[in-house]
Structure formats: C-alpha cells, structure tokens
C-alpha cells in the first residue's frame, strides 16, 4: 500500500481554489486504484486532511499522517511549505510543491527532500517577461510593467527576479502590494489607470484575483496586457467578472480542458461509479487539472522508485529517489493518456525545479474557457540558476546544512 496524504483545504478563505485541486488529486489516485489496482500492484491509500490553509492545522495534518507511512507531501500552501521544509528534511519524507513554495528549494543540494518542478515562481516571472519581449519585438526598453501582488511571502517571491530583469531589459517595475484578503483594490487600480503601465503582472490568490480582474475590467484596462501567475489563472478568478474578463491572460504549466484520454478513464472508473471526490463537478477546470497533474507526477515518481529499487512497497527515501530521477517526456505522458499535458522535464540531484517552462493561457469569456496561446516557453535558466544558488546557499549557511550531491 502506498500512502499519499493530501493536505487539502475545502474550507476557509481559499476553499474555492482548494477544492478543485484536491478533487483532481484524489480522483487521479482513485482512478489508478480502480483501473490498475494502484501503482505497480500496490493500492494507493490517499489520506485527506483538511488544513483550511492554516499553518497550524497543516502541522497537525503533517504529524497525524507522517506516522502512517506517508510517501510524499503536497501541501498546496506556501506557508505550510515553509513549515514543513525543516520537518520533512529531518523526517526524511519528500515533499513536492508544484509551482509554489520556496523557489530556491529547487536546489537539490541544499534541499534534498523538496521538489518544486515543473516550474517555480521565478521561472514564472521570467517566462512572463520573455513572452512580453516576444510581443514587443524583443525589447522592453522604456516600458512600464506593474506588479500587483499578494502582500505575503508568496506574492513577494517574484520581485527579486523581476527587478533583475527590469535592469537587464530596461523596463520600469511598479510594485503594488495588496493586503490579505484583497477585497478592496481601488487605490492600486486607480494608480494603474493613471500610470498606464504597458503591462500588469499579478501574483494573487483567492478573492484578490477576482477583485483585480474585476477592477481591471472596470477601469477598462486592456485585458490582454494583464498577465497572472498560474495561481491567478483559474476559472474562479475570471468568472465573477463576466464578459469584462475576456482576454485576460495567465501562465500555466499544464494543459487546460478535459480533452484527454485520461478523462475517459476518469469517467469510466471514478465518476460514473459515484466515487468522485468532493461534489464531483470540477472536472476539466484549471485547478482540477493541476490536481491531476500533481497526482500524476506523484504516481509516476512512485513508479520510478519501484523501478529503481525493484520493490513495490517503497519507502519515503526510495520515493525521493524516484522523484529525483523522474523524467517526463512526450511519450510517457501520451502513454498515460495525457499527451502534451505538461512540459517535458527531467530532474536531477541538483535540480529539483524542472525545466522552468510555462505557457500563456487566455480567457475566452464567450466560450467560458481558457485557451492556450503559446507553447511552453523556457525561462531564463541562467539568471534563475544564479538567483537560486544565492538564496539557497544563504539558507544552507544559516542552518549549517551539508550539501548533498557531492
């Protein structure tokens, strides 16, 4: 039996986002159990634990589940991630933070137990700028770019990268923090209206996204110049604004919609059996897909670990090896019925951050769905690597961490 805890939040201020992710995560494993009898013959035991996006409850969940042989944590909260980094390192249980958490944890030498592929926030920032460079004929010289961000550790993550990029490419970065929960953003958007930045980037979460999209629509900011990070790019974020949100863009590192073979399996083995997680109405939404994607990576890593170690009932340490040697290729994804679902990447002992690729999606309000606008764009690997090295080494020094991978 393979135990995967799911630290989900179906209540609290971010429940609307937590639910589809948790559903996707759970449904994928349920499907594996129903269709294949689990992974490599071992059934998957999914333990869901409600955190309510609350750090202390997250800790409680971690402590409650780690004794049950948990193989991998996916906390879906930057706050809880920070909590768990020292704990998982001490307990020797791997943690996967899919496109969130501590960016510099992608340095496997310092954080051997933490994985954050396929892309990090810094990748996101870099990809967004790259995309804008593309749009603007290769130069952002003299442009103004505003960053509207959640005034928390999460929201502040991209600032360092963006300011580096600003000096590099000669654009002006306007920082506009929004405090939790972010229901009132009048002054930020008035300022945007006045300064007329050429583009607005957003690192938001929860209600902040909806309000920002709405306010942007209200001031008639051109939506196609407004790009959100992947956590600001779900249906939840745009639907309340109705038609006003049409054209809004967001980053994403996986596919949207339900046009995949895997969905047939989900329908057949899970949904139609009445085993769908939650209310069962989230299939195909961005965050549901993200949950699926996270579960898929977990399952594939477990499979990899079984392969490497030749046992089916793997330990957390073996799971870690699987994660570290995981390789997502077009073929492997196609095999899973998820052709082209995510970027290709491979991990290594040093690199736990993946390829740093993300695509741009655009909201089509008329159709009520996200459309994929670009291929996966690769971030500026050189810059990111440098920043990661700096930050992670500082951490290593502060905490007397012996570097791995020597």
């Amino acid at each position: 039996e393979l135990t995967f805890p799911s630290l989900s939040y179906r209540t609290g201020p971010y429940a609307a986002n937590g639910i589809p992710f948790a559903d996707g995560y759970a449904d994928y494993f349920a499907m594996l159990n129903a269709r294949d009898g689990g992974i490599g013959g071992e059934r998957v035991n999914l333990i869901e634990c409600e955190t309510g996006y609350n750090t202390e409850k997250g800790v409680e969940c971690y402590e409650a589940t780690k004794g049950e042989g948990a193989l991998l944590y996916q906390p879906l909260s930057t706050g809880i991630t920070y909590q768990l980094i020292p704990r998982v390192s001490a307990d020797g249980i791997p943690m996967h933070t899919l496109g969130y958490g501590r960016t510099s944890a992608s340095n496997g030498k310092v954080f051997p137990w933490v994985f954050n592929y396929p892309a990090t926030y810094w990748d996101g920032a870099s990809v967004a700028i790259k995309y804008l460079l593309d749009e603007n004929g290769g130069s952002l010289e003299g442009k103004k770019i505003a960053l509207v961000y959640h005034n928390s550790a999460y929201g502040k993550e991209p600032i360092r990268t963006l300011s580096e990029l600003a000096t590099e490419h000669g654009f002006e970065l306007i920082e506009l923090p929004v405090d939790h929960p972010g229901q009132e953003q009048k002054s930020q958007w008035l300022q945007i209206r006045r300064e007329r930045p050429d583009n607005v980037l957003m690192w938001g979460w929860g209600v902040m996204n909806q309000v920002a999209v709405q306010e942007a629509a209200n001031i008639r900011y051109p939506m196609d110049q407004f790009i959100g990070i992947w956590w600001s790019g779900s249906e939840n974020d745009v639907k309340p604004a109705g038609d006003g949100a049409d054209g809004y863009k967001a980053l994403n590192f996986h596919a949207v919609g339900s046009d995949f073979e895997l969905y047939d399996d989900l329908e057949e083995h899970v949904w139609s059996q009445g085993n769908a997680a939650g209310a069962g109405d989230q299939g195909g939404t961005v965050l549901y897909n993200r949950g699926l994607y996270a579960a898929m990576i977990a399952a594939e890593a477990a499979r990899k670990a079984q392969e490497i170690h030749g046992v089916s009932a793997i330990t957390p340490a073996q799971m870690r090896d699987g994660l570290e040697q995981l390789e997502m290729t077009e073929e492997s994804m196609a095999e899973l019925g998820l052709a082209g679902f995510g970027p290709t990447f491979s991990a290594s002992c040093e690199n736990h951050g993946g390829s740093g690729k993300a695509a741009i999606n655009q909201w089509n309000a008329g159709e009520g769905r996200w459309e994929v606008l670009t291929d996966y764009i690769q971030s500026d690997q050189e810059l990111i690597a440098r920043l990661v090295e700096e930050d992670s080494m500082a951490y290593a020094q502060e905490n007397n961490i012996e570097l791995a991978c020597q």
Partner: protein
Amino acid sequence: MPDQLLFAIEVTLNGLMAGVLYALVALGFVLIFKASGIFNYAQGVMALFAALTLVGIMEGQVPFEHLINATFGTEIHGFGWEVPALLAILLTMVTMVLFAWLVNWLVLRHLVGQEPIILFMATIGLAYFLEGFGDMMWGSDIKALDVGLPQGINSWIDETTLDLFGYGFFIDNLDIAATIIAAILVAVLVAFSQYTKQGRALRAVADDHQAALSVGISLNFIWVLTWSIAGFVALVAGIMWGTKSGVQFSLSLIALKALPVLMLGGFTSIPGAIVGGLIIGVGEKLFEFLVGPLVGGATENWFAYVLALIFLVFRPQGLFGERIIERV
C-alpha cells in the same frame, strides 16, 4: 489644473465611494449594537450567508446538496430552475428573518442581562456556526452574483470630466448604485430610530436589559426586529460586495473593513456609520496615494485603524456616538 491634483481629487472621490461600501457593512453592526449593546461579530458572516442564500435561490441550488449526495449516494445537482433576482431577494429576506428569530430563540433569550463581552462571545459562536452552516448548505465554491446592478466605469462622468479638465475621472457605477442605496437605507433607519417608539425602545434595551424588561419592552420582539433589519442590511452589503468579488468565504472578512468605520463614527450612530465610512474611505485612499509609495504601500489595512484610533483619543465615543457616561 495640475495632474497630481486632479488625480488626488479622483482618489478622494473614489475614497468616498469606497467609504460608502464600508459604511453599508458598518450599519449592520450599529443597528445591533444600538438595540442590545451587542457587538455582533457575526455581521460579516451574516453578509456572506445572505449573499450565498441569494445566489443559491437564484440559481436553484438544492440546499445541503453535497451533504445529501454524500450520505445518500444520490446525484442531485440543483433544481434546474432560475429564480428572478427580485423574488430571490425577497425569499432571502424571509430566510434572514427566520435566522433572526432563531438567533433570538436559541441564543439571545438565554443571555439577557449578561455583560457585553459575554454577548460578544456568543456572537462569535454564532459566527463559527454560520460559517460552517453556510458552506455546508450552499457549498464553498465561488459564485458569481448578478442582480442586475450596473458595474464598471461611468462613461458619462468620465467624458464630462475629460471635457472639463482634460482628465477623465473614474467612478464605478456599482459605487454610485451603492451610494444611492446607502442613502435611502440610512434615511429610513434614522427615521425609524428617531421617530418611532421602537426606536426609543432600542436604545433603552441597550442601556439596561432588566429595566427595559421591567417597563414592558419585549426583548424578544426588539431583538428579532433588529436582527432582521441587520440581516437585511447584511444582505444589501452582501449584494454589493458579492457583485464586486463573487460570493465566497472571503466576503465575511469585509467586516474587518467596517470596524474602523464603526469606531470612528460611533458604535451607536447610524449617520455616524456613513460619515465614518466616508472619512475612512478618503483617508486610507489618500494616504496610500500620498504616503504609500514612500513606505512600501499596502497601508490601507492599518491606516484605517490608526486614523480611527487618533480620532478616538480626542473623542472616545467616536464622532457621533453617545457620550460615555462617567459618574459616581
């Protein structure tokens, strides 16, 4: 006019409008505080609950859908009908009255004559309960709310000001609607509390439960009445904020925006809520505009409170609150 000044005016105007939205939430607090001396922590959750109910009814959701499906293995997904906004508002109102009645029957009735802090705590319990209950009843996903209120930039103002100053002002239609509704609401509520004997009874109850009982004021009646009105105000606030940001858990946090307003205007004054709202709205927007960039922004949350605090040091009962009687 110089650009900076025009923008400052625009910020001020928007601050005023934002203030009205805060005031709408604050009004609910004021009503209940006035009528019972209870600081109703649950007001924000009530707004959420009212908005959830409204959307639920409009979209024909089955209450406790998920619970029913989970326990009986059924597959219910809505009644499949849609209720027109006006009717839905009416039905929601009925729900809020029922809620008020239940609150009185199950909670307040048993706590007559207790200290304010105990009553405050009881409303916290209520908030907890309602938070879980609302989510369980209507689900915790985000729901778009559209009762037909206009939203977005008001083009007329934009164009007129553009002609006049060469700079178009941004005023949100929703804010204008909110202002009109708030004005009507305040006028009605002031008339009610000033010119009816119930209004006088409200204040009597807030002063001394026992004495109010002894002169024959029925606390049950007064409380059901005020909680119903507060429920209605919560519904209005819920509609406004829900239209803006979708209906979801975070809606309950708007209460935090109302507290400094309350403090500034005075806990017991209906006009105070409006004036306080305006001051807070303008103050925080202007501060963010003028000083925010120097200190790194995101000052709005704390500035409102600090502003209110400074006012209070000079007027401990808020601008319009009843004088705190200090005698021996």
